[in-house]
């Protein structure tokens, strides 16, 4: 349970960090909050030659809003994302999701950029990115790319990040005034990885919903937008939306939880999210 030997550098600028990552190629790994990476090192599941610590780079943490976009710096800690005034006012979905991330001491240190870059399929921020229509901003040496969340999460721990690139910002459009949302997560114990989770957004449409986005997590190798279920919900058919999940989700079968169980749990939380979004503005979730 001790990490293997590696070198460490804490560059003071983004350009210096990107230069180090470029120079060392696949031997180098960026270090953000470290709440997954240091675990992997301690368990010797990972053995990089060099850790490039991003924590001393100015300007990578914090939340700002301008021209209808909320920008969350990659090094913003989970807790600071969820407690930021701008997030609470503009992106209540994220504020509701934050307490579900692991435990207080992990939330004090782990970062949204690290979580997005790791792309663990059972975690909260990637699903929130999908539901909220986020754009992931990536920097490489001399390059900047902007990738829609739908094109970013490609598989188990797999993203659109190219070697040498890091996530610098996660951008969310400010929801329209008629927007509603819900966040649901089922886990065996508080702070455990989700058995099934759902980040959902929509706009009110008379007594119904339109522009429904249902981002499930913990039920596939990546966060999944359930488009068929969303269409059924827009048509006012909650049961049809729940039934549609059978074709859209492919939950893993593991010894503790059968795939059929996860699918059923996904249906249950979809029902809860639908009634919350149909019943009142915003949703809430017991923590």
């Amino acid at each position, binding site marked *: *349970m*001790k*990490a*293997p*030997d*590696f*070198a*460490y*550098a*804490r*560059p*003071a600028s983004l350009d*210096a960090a990107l230069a*180090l990552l470029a120079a*060392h190629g696949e031997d180098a790994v960026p*270090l953000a909050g*470290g*709440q997954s990476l*240091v*675990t992997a*090192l*301690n*368990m010797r599941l990972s053995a990089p030659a*060099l*850790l490039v*610590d991003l*924590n001393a780079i100015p300007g990578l943490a914090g939340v700002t809003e301008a021209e209808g976009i909320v920008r969350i710096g990659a090094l913003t800690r989970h807790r600071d994302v969820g407690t930021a005034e701008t997030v609470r006012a503009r992106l209540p979905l994220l504020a509701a999701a934050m*307490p579900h991330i*692991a*435990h*207080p*001491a*992990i939330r*004090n*240190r782990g970062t949204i950029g690290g979580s997005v870059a790791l792309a663990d399929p059972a975690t909260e921020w990637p699903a929130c990115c999908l539901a909220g229509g986020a754009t992931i901003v990536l920097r490489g040496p001399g390059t900047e790319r902007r990738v829609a969340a739908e094109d970013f999460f490609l598989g188990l721990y797999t993203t659109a990040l190219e070697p040498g690139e890091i996530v610098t910002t996660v951008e969310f459009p400010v929801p329209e005034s008629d927007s509603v949302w819900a966040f649901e997560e089922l886990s065996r*114990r*508080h*702070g455990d990885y989700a058995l099934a989770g759902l980040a959902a957004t929509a706009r009110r449409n008379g007594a119904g919903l339109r522009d429904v986005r249902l981002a499930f997590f913990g039920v596939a190798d990546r966060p999944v937008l359930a488009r068929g279920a969303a269409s059924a919900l827009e048509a006012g058919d909650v049961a049809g939306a729940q039934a549609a999940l059978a074709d859209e989700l492919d939950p893993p079968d593991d010894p503790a939880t059968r795939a059929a169980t996860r699918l059923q749990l996904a249906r249950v939380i979809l029902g809860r999210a639908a009634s919350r979004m149909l019943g009142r503005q915003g949703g809430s979730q017991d*923590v």
Partner: protein
Amino acid sequence: MSENRASENPDREHAVAFTLNGEAVRARVPARMHLGDLLRGAFGLTGVHLGCEHGVCGACTILVDGRAVRACLMLGVQADGTRVETVEGLTESGRIRDLQDAFHTRNALQCGYCTPGMLVTAAELLAEGEEAGDVPSRDVIRAAISGNYCRCTGYHAIVDAVAVTAQARHAARREVAE
């Protein structure tokens, strides 16, 4: 003193300078050493208990810049420039004396292995409650200590101890206010 600080250049060992339980300290640290091992080995702070060393059990919880973190999930080199407090520092300052007394009277520890982490986690929760001017409910206390494993008590006594401390502090604040 920049030449003594953790380097912008890659190295397998770095010099660090930080504030530890109120005192300025320096050390040379292998990059691979986590902060828990640094605090125990170089500074003798064996109240930083190591249970799982992968962030699950919470026994190594300390305060860094006033926030609870896992000492096993920070590298020792990352302590550079920070303010670190362990259960020893919290104890000597007297800031958690009431909480420690409550742990004793409520039988909130048996083997004691989880206790430093529980105390530090509860200390952060209680400090937050004081800032907000409210008393955490038992549900909030349970959620706060959900990342700290105790295999002896069944948790009820720990929740009791934190709850009575929160109530006592709140009552004391009201008395002062009146």
